[in-house]
């Protein structure tokens, strides 16, 4: 296809936009004490935090998929004001400053919280300060991205595929798993990537709701924050390691998953 030449103005604006992302990154890379990077990587604190971060963000993405896809399905078939209200509610965790999100989670699921107090009295279970709390905080903050992407995918889905499947005798679950989910794959995948990225960088809600304990709730962003306090260079290195890991995963997965359909 022959397109009109892109005017310089568009190119310049795009370049400015890209610079806004690239310059800070360049700043980090220039200032990072690369000689220490390997030492940092060998540090058990780093590897533990990295492992926990990856575990928590993937688990949170898993929960977001489990709860978010059904939620998006309900949203997509709701009509009128109710839908706008539900949608706005889903967008809330994005507007809420994460620290307040953490406080809100404490008020709901903490030892004295609305639901948490019942759990504590009945089973002696306390959610905060556990890895489960970190996963929950990340799910809370990151799930909206998945829900919004999947809902958009559902709205643009051609429902005749599902109808064809039903008329071929497929019941709900067969249609859902063999037709709906595969057709939604691009939307689910891009939503999951956004969700995962957001969960990986989550800090405010996690520290407030789950606290900070190495190996249990200390994810990389929290470790980075602590390192900023005592050894800022290490913090920068740690952030870069997080970036490299996530970029590698992003580039690696995108083609494999989005390319196929």
């Amino acid at each position, binding site marked *: 296809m022959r397109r009109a030449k892109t005017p310089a103005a568009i190119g310049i604006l795009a370049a400015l936009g890209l610079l806004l992302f690239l310059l800070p990154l360049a700043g980090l890379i220039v200032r990072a004490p690369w000689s220490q990077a390997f030492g940092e990587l060998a540090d058990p604190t780093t590897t533990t935090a990295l492992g926990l971060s990856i575990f928590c963000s993937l688990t949170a993405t898993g929960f977001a998929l489990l709860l978010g896809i059904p939620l998006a399905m309900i949203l997509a078939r709701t009509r009128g004001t109710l839908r706008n209200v539900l949608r706005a509610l889903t967008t809330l965790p994005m507007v809420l400053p994460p620290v307040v999100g953490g406080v809100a989670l404490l008020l709901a699921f*903490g030892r004295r919280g609305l639901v948490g107090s019942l759990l504590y009295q009945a089973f002696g279970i306390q959610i905060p300060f556990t890895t489960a709390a970190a996963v929950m905080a990340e799910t809370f903050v990151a799930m909206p991205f998945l829900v919004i992407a999947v809902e958009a995918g559902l709205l643009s889905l051609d429902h005749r595929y599902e109808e064809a499947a039903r008329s071929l005798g497929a019941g709900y679950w067969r249609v859902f798993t063999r037709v709906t989910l595969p057709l939604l794959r691009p939307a689910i995948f891009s939503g999951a990537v956004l969700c995962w990225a957001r969960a990986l960088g989550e800090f405010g809600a996690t520290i407030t709701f789950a606290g900070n304990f190495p190996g249990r709730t200390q994810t990389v962003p929290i470790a980075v924050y602590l390192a900023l306090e005592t050894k800022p260079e290490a913090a920068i290195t740690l952030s870069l390691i997080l970036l490299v890991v996530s970029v590698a995963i992003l580039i690696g997965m995108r083609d494999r998953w989005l390319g196929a359909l």
Partner: protein
Amino acid sequence: GNPCGDGCHGQFSITVFAAASLQPPFDTIAARLRALGTTATFNYAGTQVLTAQLTQGAQADVFASADTAHMKTLEDAGLVDGTPQVFAHNKLEIVVAKGNPKGIHGLADLARTGLVVVLADPSVPAGKYAQQALQKAGVTVHPASLELQVTGVLSKVALGEADAGIVYVSDIVTSGKVDGVGIPDDQNVIADYPIASLKSAHQGARIFVNFVLSTDGQTILKAAGFEGV
């Protein structure tokens, strides 16, 4: 008398970078100074954020730190004008829920099983001091969380998630939602709060520093739970 000593005239407008925990007394001090013609603008944040900002070239006249280590960082970077002065101390206290339902009377009680204890991380000053205090008392606790800020400890106790923690006296005074259990002086650690005017600060900086060190300033700080110098 004149709180700023000699050579203090006219209208000034200064910028103060101060640790977030200093907000209640410093806001009062600013109100008093404004009546005298000096307007102070504050940038309250965690000490380490302020340090990062200053080393990256932030323009400020006064820096009030919650510990000496960060002040030292700035001195080493050649950003401090003159010698920093300690303007307040803060002692540690055990923070518990209102009415002390768990009956905690000393550091030794923190080692009890079934008690959810939250401390600050050893890499932040409050955490480092708490660690020292526990060492002096010969107590080993298993904290549920190592908070990044003292306020994290405070709010977890205030919200009932934790049964006890170790914070500064001033935090408990400011909060009003929790009770404090004193730590004997032989186990306690005293935190120093240094203040300094910065390179290229103008004259108003001295007025602010002097007021903080004056009797009036010290009274305000004491009311907020700090110990004077």
